[in-house]
């Protein structure tokens, strides 16, 4: 067996020909005395006297003349069955394969950009568990149970409880790219397993976190789009440069549906119908927008607005009609938090859903004292999708659920 190949295919394009090369790849085309090798970084043609079989992994050795490699191909492994297989893993033989290869490389770049952004601002990257005693009690979120463990565990729907415990534990600026799971969610903007970018900032509220959000998105866009902040969105180009527009939920309802929030509530189904049918599709079409001042009944883990207790300190950002994130000025009052979680449990039972336990250690952290804090949970897959102009988050994942 030969020593390791020296060049991934991409680097070949940067060599000045003629140059001696030795590189590994997979044979994706055989025509006469010529084969084409491919990997996720690109493809190259090799002229060789003895052609390897289609699908073989080979090491090509010879001279790169700027167009082809002239030399030999040594077969390392060859497929034992048909190649390519239907539904197989070689991307360029999938209908959307070339786009997926590009997306996965862009996604890796976006991850690095996110880390650079937060590291530069003295945020600590953390990792919290995937399997937890309580996955959160939101009425409309259902968790995957972990089978066969005692005491029971569920996969997180967001890393919120544990990250807030770290805030209370003395880590005032933290972020995490966390894998999350939500049952029954599948569509262009949903996958049951996805990546959440979540961050918390002590001594801050939603205003500071909204600023983080717009600067972060602009930074990631510049990194991925050669310095530009204009993203393809879903059709019309959108400039994500800060500052983003801010609109209250009530203003948005009046503008796009001609009805005030108080005229709709307490009918929550009607509220959400109007939101998804009339309001959301209009949001962030030219520039991203923050929707702020959500109704107090939808506060979840946000504090109420100190100036108007009918609304809460919660925001969401929209780009191209797609919800990108949900952030809070965090509720730090343990008594109020427990009251809300109990009410959530009751609502879940009334709807015939599992009432997950209240995470007493999370409440304990609030009792010990949480600094006033802001936090945000941003759908990382959606961000990558929007930056690339992809049609679904599954297109920017290596294995969306339908490929498992």
């Amino acid at each position, binding site marked *: 067996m030969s020593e390791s190949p020296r060049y991934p295919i991409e680097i070949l394009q940067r060599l000045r020909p003629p140059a001696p090369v030795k590189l590994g790849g997979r044979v994706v085309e055989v025509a006469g005395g010529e084969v084409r090798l491919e990997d996720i970084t690109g493809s190259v043609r090799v002229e060789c006297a003895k052609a390897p079989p289609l699908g073989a992994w080979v090491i090509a050795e010879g001279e790169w003349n700027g167009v082809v490699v002239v030399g030999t191909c040594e077969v390392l492994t060859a497929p034992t069955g048909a190649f390519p297989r239907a539904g197989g893993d070689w991307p360029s033989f999938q209908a959307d394969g070339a786009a997926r290869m590009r997306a996965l490389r862009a996604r890796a770049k976006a991850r690095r950009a996110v880390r650079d952004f937060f590291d530069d601002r003295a945020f600590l990257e953390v990792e919290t568990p995937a399997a937890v005693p309580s996955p959160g009690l939101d009425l409309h979120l259902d968790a995957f149970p972990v089978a066969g463990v005692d005491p029971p565990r569920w996969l997180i729907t967001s890393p919120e409880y544990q990250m807030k415990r770290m805030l209370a534990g003395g880590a005032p600026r933290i972020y995490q790219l966390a894998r999350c799971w939500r049952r029954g969610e599948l569509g*262009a*903007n949903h996958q049951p397993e996805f990546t959440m970018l979540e961050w918390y900032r002590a001594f801050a509220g939603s205003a500071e976190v909204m600023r983080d959000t717009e600067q972060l998105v602009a930074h990631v866009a510049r990194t991925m789009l050669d310095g530009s902040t204009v993203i393809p969105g879903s059709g019309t180009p959108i400039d994500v440069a800060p500052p983003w527009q801010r609109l209250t939920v009530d203003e948005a309802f009046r503008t796009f549906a001609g009805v005030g929030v108080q005229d709709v509530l307490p009918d929550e189904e009607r509220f959400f119908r109007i939101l*998804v049918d009339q309001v959301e599709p209009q949001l962030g079409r030219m520039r991203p927008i923050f929707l702020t001042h959500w109704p107090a009944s*939808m506060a979840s883990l946000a504090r109420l607005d100190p100036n108007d207790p009918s609304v809460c300190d919660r925001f969401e950002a929209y780009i191209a009609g797609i*919800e990108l994130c949900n952030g809070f000025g965090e509720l730090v009052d343990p008594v109020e938090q427990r009251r809300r979680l109990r009410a959530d449990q009751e609502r879940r039972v009334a709807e015939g859903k599992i009432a997950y336990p209240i995470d007493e250690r999370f409440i304990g952290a609030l009792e010990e004292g949480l600094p006033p804090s802001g936090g945000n949970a941003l759908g990382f897959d959606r961000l990558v999708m929007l930056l690339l102009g992809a049609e679904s988050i599954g297109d920017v994942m290596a294995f969306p659920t339908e490929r498992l």
Partner: protein
Amino acid sequence: MADTTDLKKGFKMLIDRNPFVVVDCQFVKPGKGQAFFRTKLKNMQTGAVLDRTFKSGEKLEKADTEERGMQFLYKEGDQYVFMDNETYDQMRLSEELLSDSIHYLLDNMHIDVMLFEGRPIGITPPNFVELEVTETEPGFKGDTSSNTTKPATCSTGLVVNVPLFVDVGDKLKIDTRTGEYVERVKS
């Protein structure tokens, strides 16, 4: 009884006693809110398309539709007569009901007829049909340019845009889903 888990492209359902087919379906769910399915539905009788949003879990009524293989026999006035391949029953469909599909009907052709509660409401022609050109401007011999096109009328009355080399008497492969010329068929 069906529910929203059945919603996908091609699902046929009843709304106010009318059969609709789902042509587009999107799962939408605010992060902190209820899940919905935003759909585009096509009325299978009129072709009209409407937007409808269903709450996740909502009950739906499946449409009692059935596709039956039939043979097109002949045209009589504005009526088209078909015969069921299995029962040999004959069925008459009006020109109005068939609308654009009449352009793809050739004598003795086998097609699927859509029945709703036993009544015919439309047909699905094969994806591709071969039609003969009855009228077109003459083209230049040997012109294989594909950038320029001209109109050609086919035996069924369908008018399609074709490359210049197509002549009267040529057989053309037509995509019935788009109504567009695919290629000239070697005869």
